[in-house]
């Protein structure tokens, strides 16, 4: 929680005002029963109608003042609570933007979404409640106790018994309930998990006739959820009766002791009535507190989920005096080793090679041979564990991240387009790109041939994730988007796998002829996609097996030959 508090700064005014207004409301409210006792004990006793009217009017005014402060407190509390939530949400979003790829691997999208929406909302609500309830309850208690003392100090002794009793009872119930509620939450998660699982895999369930098997799995979890819930609830249900017993016992005790004082004439009957009102208020305040603690419990889970994100540090740190200029597109790997944060084994082992600026390098190798991992080190999506990667002769860690990534375009394997027009999507590459520039890029990526057929042209609407394009079309669009960055280096990670061979060949040609100065690195499964590259790098289990031209590799790389032979079979006449 301490970690989050600084985000209250912008709304601190409201965070301070809300409790103040609340205290003022409590003051206004607490006087009223006392005033009433004056009406009974003085007004009625003296048959003084004007006194009754005077005191009565003060009561009404007091209530109206209380109402005004109460409403103000609500408003300030809401502003502070939800302002606070918005600030945290913004901070979270910024933090996620700052995440490295390694961080992103750790959190799933739904879990991030929940944290930014539900958790932030809960924090806002709990904050608002805290500002109001956490202040109202203790002050109500103190003021009411003070008034009760003023009326009759000897009767206050009754509280010496009832308040500790109530505290003990509440503590026992709540502390027993807490672990049950935590257990309950984990049971809820288990039920949700199986529902999610069945939703995504419904076809598997149906084709294997596993409906009743799944139902029995669900039943077991659902039953245990209900049983845990019942246990927790049968504890909580004790709260109300216990509170009522305490309240009424106290009232009866006050009536007993106070009643004798009234008979003896040392206490007015109006005082006795107002005393009873204060008792109700004091004990209600306790109830409010226990309710508030339960809310806090709910909030604390959200807070820890949010803080977990804020505490996640991006491993990718910028040099304090970063270089902004990148001289050329040459790339050097010098004794590079790499290990993913949570894994034990090295994914890349002692990689050494150099690419000239403007060269086209193909990379091929089996899955798990770490081709993608290798190229991800160039734009610093991950940092090397040992050794160094240099671009333009300088270690990539010396550049500013923005300069580096602006110059290194990376077309990811899971390429995504975003909902919006095609033009908007293309502008991701260059914010102020003109239509001519966009069309040029689309042409290079062989995407213009289908885009030009759309009536809407560049205004054609892209669905979320680019779902309204075929795999091959999507890949071509994402290549075009990357080209708009006019990078010094472009990396295509299996980006033409769904494109037909003829088009693929056209893209290769465009890279060779139109983008001579751009260093191009192509990862591919198909030999045909890279066989015309200047050089080809064959990866095997995290190491460079061979590097050379197509013809040479056919002679001296058994892996390359094996891949080539296996693919030749599929294509008749090739």
């Amino acid at each position, binding site marked *: 929680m301490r970690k989050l508090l600084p985000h209250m700064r912008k709304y601190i005014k409201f965070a301070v005002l809300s409790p103040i207004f609340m205290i003022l409301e409590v003051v206004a409210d607490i006087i009223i029963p006392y005033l009433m006792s004056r009406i009974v004990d003085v007004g009625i006793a003296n048959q003084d109608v004007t006194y009754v009217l005077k005191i009565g009017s003060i009561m009404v005014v007091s209530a109206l003042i209380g109402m005004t402060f109460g409403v103000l407190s609500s408003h300030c509390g809401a502003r502070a609570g939800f302002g606070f939530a918005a600030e945290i949400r913004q901070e979270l979003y910024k933090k996620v933007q700052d995440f490295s790829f390694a961080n992103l691997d750790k959190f799933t999208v739904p879990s991030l979404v929940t944290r930014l929406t539900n958790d932030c909302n809960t924090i806002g609500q709990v904050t608002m409640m805290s500002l109001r309830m956490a202040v109202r309850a203790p002050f109500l208690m103190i003021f009411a106790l003070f008034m009760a003392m003023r009326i009759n100090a000897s009767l206050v002794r009754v509280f010496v018994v009832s308040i500790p009793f109530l505290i003990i009872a509440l503590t026992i119930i709540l502390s027993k309930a807490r672990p049950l509620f935590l257990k309950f939450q984990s049971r809820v998660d288990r039920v949700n998990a199986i529902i999610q699982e069945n939703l995504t895999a419904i076809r598997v369930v149906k084709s294997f006739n596993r409906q009743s098997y799944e139902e029995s799995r669900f039943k077991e979890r659902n039953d245990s959820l209900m049983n845990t819930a019942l246990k927790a609830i*049968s504890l909580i249900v004790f709260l109300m009766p216990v509170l009522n017993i305490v309240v009424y016992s106290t009232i009866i005790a006050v009536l007993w002791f106070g009643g004798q004082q009234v008979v003896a004439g040392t206490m007015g009957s109006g005082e006795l009535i107002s005393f009873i009102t204060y008792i109700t208020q004091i004990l209600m305040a306790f109830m409010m507190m226990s309710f508030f603690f339960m809310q806090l419990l709910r909030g604390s889970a959200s807070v820890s989920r949010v803080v977990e994100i804020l505490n996640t540090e991006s491993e990718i740190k910028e040099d304090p005096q970063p270089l902004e200029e990148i001289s050329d597109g040459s790339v050097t790997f010098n004794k590079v080793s790499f290990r993913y944060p949570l894994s034990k084994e090295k994914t890349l082992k002692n990689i050494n090679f150099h690419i000239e600026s403007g060269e086209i390098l193909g990379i091929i190798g089996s899955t798990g041979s770490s081709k993608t991992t290798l190229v991800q080190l160039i734009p610093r999506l991950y940092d090397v564990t040992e050794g160094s990667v240099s671009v333009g002769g300088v270690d990539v860690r010396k550049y500013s991240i923005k300069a580096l990534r602006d110059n290194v375009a990376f077309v*990811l394997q899971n390429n995504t387009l975003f909902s919006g027009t095609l033009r908007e999507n293309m502008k991701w590459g260059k914010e102020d790109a003109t239509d001519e520039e966009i069309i040029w890029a689309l042409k290079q990526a062989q995407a213009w041939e289908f885009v030009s057929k759309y009536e809407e042209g560049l205004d054609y609407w892209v669905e979320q994730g680019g779902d309204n394009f075929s795999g091959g079309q999507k890949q071509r669009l994402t290549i075009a988007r990357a080209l708009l960055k006019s990078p010094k280096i472009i990396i295509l990670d299996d980006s033409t796998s769904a494109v037909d061979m003829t088009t693929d060949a056209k893209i290769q040609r465009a890279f060779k002829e139109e983008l001579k100065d751009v260093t191009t690195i192509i990862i591919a499964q198909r030999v045909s996609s890279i066989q015309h590259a200047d050089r080809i790098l064959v990866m095997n289990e995290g190491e460079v097996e061979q590097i050379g031209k197509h013809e040479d590799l056919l002679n001296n790389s058994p892996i390359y030959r094996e891949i080539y032979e296996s693919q030749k079979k599929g294509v008749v006449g090739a």
Partner: protein
Amino acid sequence: MKGKQLRPKDTKRTLIRLFSYFKYNRALFFGGIFFIILASIMEVGINGMLSPVIDSLIGDYDKSFFIKYLLIMIGMMVVVAITQYIGNLSMAKLAQRTVHRIREDMFSHMEKLPVSYFDKHSHGELMSTFTNDVDMLNQSLEQSVSQIIVSLVTVVGTFVMMLILSPLLTVVVILMLGIMLLSVKYVGKKSARNFRRQQFALADMNGYIEEMMSGQKVIKVFNYEERAIEKFNMKNEELRIAATQASTYGTMLMPVMGNLSFVLYALISMLGAYMVMINRLSVGNIASFLQYTRTISRPITQVSNQLNTLFAALAGAERIFNVLDEEIEKDEGDVVLVEDSEGENKLYWKVPKEKGEYEEIPLKGYITFKDVDFGYEPGKKVLKNINLYAKPGQKIAFVGSTGAGKTTITNLINRFYEIEKGVILYDGIDIRRINKHSLRSTMSIVLQDVHLFEGTVADNIRYGRLDATDEEVVEAAKLANAHYFIKHLPQGYDTMLTVDGQNLSQGERQLLSIARAAIADPTILILDEATSSIDTRTEKLISEGMDKLMEGRTTFVIAHRLSTVRDSNAIMVLENGEIIERGDHEELMARKGRYYALNMGTLELE
């Protein structure tokens, strides 16, 4: 995601339906209500006792009366505590059991829904009904119902007591309550409007975050962070304003009502005092009356607070019932699969004839499509006039671009969808006559996106046949070429898989799903080949595994790679839902048509 409905469309129907669930726990329901009402009446009564107790102190003091009244109060207090405990516990139990039952009904209904339902509804939507709506209903049943009952009884009881104490003062109370109700209505209206606005802002924000976070890696690669933050901030601000307003109005009710009740308290004090002076009322009467003015405003605040949640919960209940009302998959088939009566391990279709006689047809795996038409929506045909046959043990491959209808054909064989026209025969029997359970038990599918379940590796393989022994599991894994990688997992076959097997690679998951299909020992096999992202070597393991799996089974392959198609007995080239070319590899290559073009790399497959 759009903003959710906050009010049910048909409140009455939903309520009746909801109440029908209580019939399973009638005793709890009526008992609970009875005790809650009793507790509320007793509470009203205790406050009423103040009047005689205080009056017994004033004037002619009679200690025996005083003690008698106090003892009555103690008795009432004990009754309140006990009845409140029983009542609340019953309602809570009722809520839990009802929700438990609803959850169970929903799940088993979901399992029975046809596949087409899941095409039309997103997972998120269903998930939210399952979690949020059910949760909301649970809360409402647990709290709102009993609170509303308590409030009603308290209000009515208090009114009765007030009338007994002083009709004149009661008129003042009624006037004041009128003002209170008006302000509740005004604030409530504003609060509901802003609450809706907040829901919309939240849904909008949700959608935006989800889309951006799914593409977060692209954002990084394009240095798009700042622009993403800018747009986010706009939505965040809108949400902040909406939430602030919604909850300002939401929480305003408490101080407004609380203080209005103090105004009432003041008015009663003044008027009451005057009436005491003119001997129309006793001091004890005022004491009780004042206590009542405090208790009568609380139920009104509570009910108005509960009403919004209650309506939202009912809207959720309506969504739940809508799911429950969805038509389930029909299964009117009367042909079932039986084991041979002679005890050999051969399976037969038991086909009922007239007069209780049966014909036994041996299970072979002969599939015929005759003039089949199909569309996911009426009027939009996805498959037109499909005719084909597969003899037992043959391999049929479907080739064609995305949307050509390859997957659809295979989905018709296992009756995930019902055909519009024509007939599909299985060993000469119309598949519509075959009991679905029997039909599907003879088939296995290997889908391109593999879905695995939480549990061990062995559990996942055994999913194909629940009574398979450990040896059989290993056997199947070996056949699927999965044994090698499984043995290298930390706990081998006992390695726990996380949700959907996320801790395995795509290729490994594929191998597991082959093993799962193998253990089922199906007569018919449907293979939906994985597209890219599997390398040639793993691919080789997979295709070897598949080859072994296909031996002796009728196989339908949805091909994404031409290399696996060549040895098929027949290749169907699909376009726009029609078979445009058919034949084996040599025939099709010789024809120099679409298949030839695909093979020569001049056409896109996907």
